[in-house]
């Protein structure tokens, strides 16, 4: 075997060794990144427990007044486990949240509302036809609203039909029509939604529990400036993580596009 025959074989092995080196480097980086995720997960869990135990001062006093309306979106798979939802509501009540909109796309929580209201002391069903003032003497009370996908697009379509009807009536009686083409402002649609039985209150914060980072069909009309936080699985929810998310929200400054 002379030198010319040896060259291709040599370059092949050099290439293979180079590939192996790169592969090892890639796996090393993979290990480092995986370890980083594990460590940060452990850190997160420790932090969450420390917050739960009240060891971290800044989470002990939260300006809960800023959170007037909270939305909680629950994946349908966990919505069946109502006990977790009840625990969550009790935690929210402890924190001082006054109004919670509980959403799951299929309306499973709506079906269990009586049980949920019974199991959460101090909870009341939010009978909503308009904005509700939260007066200070309602301390220890949490208003719960049960929402599903039918309150989203279906409700807007019904409200659109009401506006259509109103417009057609005003066309038939032009002398009674004071607004003319102005039946289509945001406040008109708000009013039409209230007629249909929908709450139009905009949540300040939305917590999403589930595998997907999506609001899963929460009423779109209400989501304009809502802060959205993905909390992971409801099965592994932690009080500390909940407190941390709410605390972070109280520090957010919105400029509303201006």
């Amino acid at each position, binding site marked *: 075997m002379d030198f010319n025959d040896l060259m291709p074989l040599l370059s092949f092995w050099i290439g*293979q060794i180079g*590939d*192996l080196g790169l*592969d*090892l480097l890639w*796996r090393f980086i*993979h290990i480092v990144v995986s370890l980083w995720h594990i460590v940060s997960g452990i850190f997160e869990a420790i932090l969450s427990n420390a917050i739960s135990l009240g060891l971290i001062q800044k989470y002990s006093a939260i300006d809960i007044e800023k959170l007037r309306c909270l939305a909680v979106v629950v*994946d*349908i*798979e966990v919505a069946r486990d109502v006990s977790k939802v009840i625990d969550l509501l009790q935690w929210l009540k402890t924190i001082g949240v006054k109004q919670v909109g509980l959403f799951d*796309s*299929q309306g499973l929580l709506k079906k269990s509302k009586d049980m949920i209201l019974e199991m959460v002391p101090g909870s009341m069903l939010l009978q909503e036809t308009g904005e509700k003032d939260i007066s200070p003497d309602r301390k220890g009370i949490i208003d719960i609203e049960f929402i599903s*996908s039918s309150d*989203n*697009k*279906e409700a*807007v*379509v019904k409200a*659109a*039909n009401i*506006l*259509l*009807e109103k*417009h*057609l009536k005003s*066309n038939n009686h032009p002398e009674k029509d004071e607004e003319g*083409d102005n039946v*289509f*402002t*945001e406040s008109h*649609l708000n009013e039409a939604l209230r007629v249909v039985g929908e709450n139009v209150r905009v949540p300040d914060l939305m917590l999403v529990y589930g*595998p*997907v*980072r*999506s*609001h*899963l*069909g*929460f009423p*779109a*009309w209400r*989501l*304009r*400036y*809502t*802060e*959205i*936080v*993905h909390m992971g699985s409801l099965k592994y929810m932690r009080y500390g993580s909940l407190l941390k998310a709410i605390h972070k929200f109280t520090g957010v400054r*919105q400029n*509303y*596009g*201006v």
Partner: protein
Amino acid sequence: MLSLLCCFLFFLSFLVHSCLRLRTQAKRSLKDEKEIDEGAYVVGEEETPTRLLRELMPRHVAVIMDGNRRWAERAGLLTSQGHEAGAKRLLEFAELCFKLGIETVSAFAFSTENWGRHKIEVKCLMSLIQRYLKSKIQFFQSEEIRVSVIGNLEKIPESLLGIIKETEEATMRYKKKHLILAIDYSGRSDILHACKSIVKKSQQGLIREEDVDETLFEQELLTKCTEFPSPDLLIRTSGEQRISNFLLWQLAYTELFFSPVLWPDFDKYKFLEALISYQRRERRFGCRI
């Protein structure tokens, strides 16, 4: 001594495993791997940490390009330069999306609420959009990118309206790649506009009251210009975690990806992160599996 031995054995098994993997990889041909970029990632048939599956690519990606002003501030530049960098980033982003097989890209370029900003900034933004659209018409045509603009457009300067119309007309025939720019757009106004449109059609006898349902309503929204009005993935940069009145109706089951990076810094690697996150999610569209 024992720990050293364990390390050595671990390393040896690792080495052997790697060699075996190399042999099988060498047998696999490069036919099922397509180079998309300068080695940043490839799109193939199987999923690996660096690879994206073509069949799991979103069809429609929406982006809220937040952070141009903060980027300019941090870089010691003018706000207008921040917006310039943002516009450049958008074109790069759109090109990358189309290369990856994503058919529709929607960008929130200017919201109705943005009219409340300083007059000079608004004027700069309008001028920037006009300049970019005018200078890129040929590019859009050569790349066969359809450009649509959605929004109220009543307050838009005439000169910009003219350029928008020209761009839309020049690119209307292209089907495979669609860039939608939301200018003077508000999600709530979009819904109201659909209501008005329904009333108008009802007055003209084109639809009956009982025909009004979700499907019909969706066809009256401003996103009717695209086959896929609902984005699969929404990316918002700069760390803000809200949708700020963008495509409210259309985002029901959209995967939301909030990146802490400012928009002009949102490069292909950050986008890769968003796509990997998207492809790993189990989207159920509100149903049980």
